[in-house]
């Protein structure tokens, strides 16, 4: 069923066990099958998702400490491979890349000729997708594939990609996936889901493609004890989630509070740096730029990530619609948590906490919402 998105929800979950040595073989196994494996690895003091060719590149023995406006890597007491939460990257880097050549125009004797640029991205295998990120993938699917128009770049990459989810066994103080109903347990949308145990990995197969990969590893049926350990480790993540966002009637709450004084309050702290939109796994705003050769006979159109925090994002008729940071932050938050529901039928927030961690001044959307709701001051 290549080309089909994993529908793991409909499959019966028979857990398998692979020891570390055996599970390590999954990377070469995937590479043999033509996948470019993207997994967590340490770069410039953060755990990012990047091409890997061996499990040795995983952040073995490292963890991330996160708070509002703070991220730090620390040594773990053990040698866990997936003992961290989420970093500044999300999988959108690969499905909706920061820069894409979309089309090109050639000036011929008959005038301009327009054509699409064939996307030459590899077939990806994503290793280490968290539950919140599975939800984010499903949200971007709605944006780029499930409307009246289909984005060919996203669609091709997404349909070919293999998703190996890794259940969280710990959570950061910035996580609030439980409030958003997205995590921490991976329940759908994966080809394989993994829970890391002390001496190996519990594997759940979510699709035929996943099955084919897992069948290449030496596994055994998971024992009761292993299942209990996995359960207990996942429960630890659940217990560690303390941050909350009350989503009750949130669309109407926010869209009826467009003149709330809190927007001004947050505007006085927000730098309009756009970090929050760059790290957010669901933000999709972009701009198109013309790139011409010197003779102007060949012109490419490049699509790049943009942000509603950029001052000229709302440029129109010689002026800027959202002139101040108040208007821009309001746009971001109301889009994410309210108008997204009108547009795509789901919230645009999965509760991953990245925007809280990577905001240089530590602005926390859960706190802003609570104030706007009148629950805090």
């Amino acid at each position, binding site marked *: 069923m290549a080309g089909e998105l994993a529908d793991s929800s409909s499959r019966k979950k028979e857990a398998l066990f692979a020891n570390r040595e055996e599970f390590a073989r999954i990377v070469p196994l995937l590479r043999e099958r033509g996948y470019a494996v993207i997994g967590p690895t340490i770069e410039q003091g953060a755990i990012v998702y990047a091409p890997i060719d061996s499990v040795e590149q995983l952040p073995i023995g490292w963890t991330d400490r996160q708070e509002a406006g703070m991220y730090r890597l620390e040594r773990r007491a053990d040698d866990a491979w997936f003992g961290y939460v989420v970093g500044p990257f999300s999988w959108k880097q690969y499905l909706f890349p920061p820069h894409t050549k979309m089309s090109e*125009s050639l*000036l011929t004797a008959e005038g301009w000729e327009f054509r*699409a640029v064939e996307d030459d991205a590899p077939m990806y295998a994503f290793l280490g997708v968290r539950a919140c990120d599975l939800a984010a993938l499903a949200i971007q699917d709605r944006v780029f594939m499930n409307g009246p128009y289909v984005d060919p770049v996203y669609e091709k990459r997404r349909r070919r990609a293999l998703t190996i989810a890794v259940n969280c066994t710990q959570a950061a103080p910035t996580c609030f996936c439980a409030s958003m109903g997205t995590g921490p347990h991976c329940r759908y949308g994966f080809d394989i889901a993994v829970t890391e145990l002390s001496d190996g990995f519990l594997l759940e197969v979510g699709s035929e493609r996943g099955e084919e990969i897992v069948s290449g590893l030496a596994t055994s049926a998971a024992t009761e004890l292993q299942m209990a350990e996995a359960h207990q480790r996942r429960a630890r993540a659940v217990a560690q989630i303390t941050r909350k966002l009350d989503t009750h009637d949130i669309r109407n709450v926010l869209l009826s509070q467009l003149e709330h004084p809190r927007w001004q309050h947050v505007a006085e702290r927000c730098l309009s740096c756009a970090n929050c939109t760059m790290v957010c796994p669901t933000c999709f705003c*972009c*701009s198109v730029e*013309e790139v011409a050769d010197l003779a102007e006979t060949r*012109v490419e159109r490049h699509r790049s990530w943009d942000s509603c925090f950029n001052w000229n994002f709302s440029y129109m008729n010689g002026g800027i*619609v959202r002139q101040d940071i108040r208007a821009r932050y309001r746009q971001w938050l109301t889009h994410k948590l309210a108008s997204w529901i009108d*547009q795509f039928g789901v919230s645009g927030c999965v509760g991953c906490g990245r925007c809280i961690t990577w905001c240089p001044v530590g602005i926390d959307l859960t706190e802003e919402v609570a104030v706007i709701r009148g629950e805090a001051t």
Partner: protein
Amino acid sequence: MSTAACAGVRPDSAHPWVATPATIVRIDQEVPGVATYYLELCDEKARSDYRFQPGQFNMLYLPGAGEIAISVSGDPAAAGPYAHTIRRAGNVTGSLWQLKVGDKLGIRGPFGSGWPLGECQGRDVVLVAGGIGLAPLRPVIYSLSKWENELGRRVLLCGARSPETLLYHSQYLQWIEAGWQVETTVDRASPDWNGHVGAVTLLLERLRSVDASRAVLFCCGPEVMMKFSAMVALRRGWSADRIWISMERNMQCAVGWCGHCQWGPAFICRDGPVFRYDRIAPFLDVPGL
């Protein structure tokens, strides 16, 4: 907000972001700084498939300069070429100004929601246009001019900066003959002008020939003008669900992906540009949305 049905048929393109070539077959200078470009799709199949609804727009692409949203301003029943009435504004429209008949550009569309002509059935219809805002309304005039008995009164209220910027004025007589009551007003009169002076909302204020309680209002122009027109109409007894306006924001994709055209809960490219007033009224009052 529900996704508006894309009633028009768009040129066949596997990639929603790739334009189809079109040739400029005629250019009419309208008023200073405004010209109508008649575009013919080069591909025969695209040409025969192309249909648009009054109020829909195309994305016009000039390689090297960029892409802009422009309403189709011609008769939806005609087989093409397709009229686009364009005001010279900045970069892309400035480059367009350099083009001549026979030159080619790219086109994508049609996009967006159109004016709901079905709502006009058996009712009085008032069109309120400010400046270039008449361009997206002209297809309505063409269409409703052909209706016979199904319609009440047809009124066009037109505002412009000055008498020489009244768009399409050479067609007014034709429209009057087709049954339209055409009223004009200007912000700044010239010595030989003996018509109305002031905002187009004044014309709406004074309009007595229609039954407001059953009339339909389509309005396009600057945002403040549309807001005040709607206020006047409500005061005159219009029902909020029989007022439609056409909104505008920066647009880069026209298909709900780039995020630029967002306005409150809507993508203007996808859910608009034509909105029913009662559905968006609260957002019109919020500055900087």
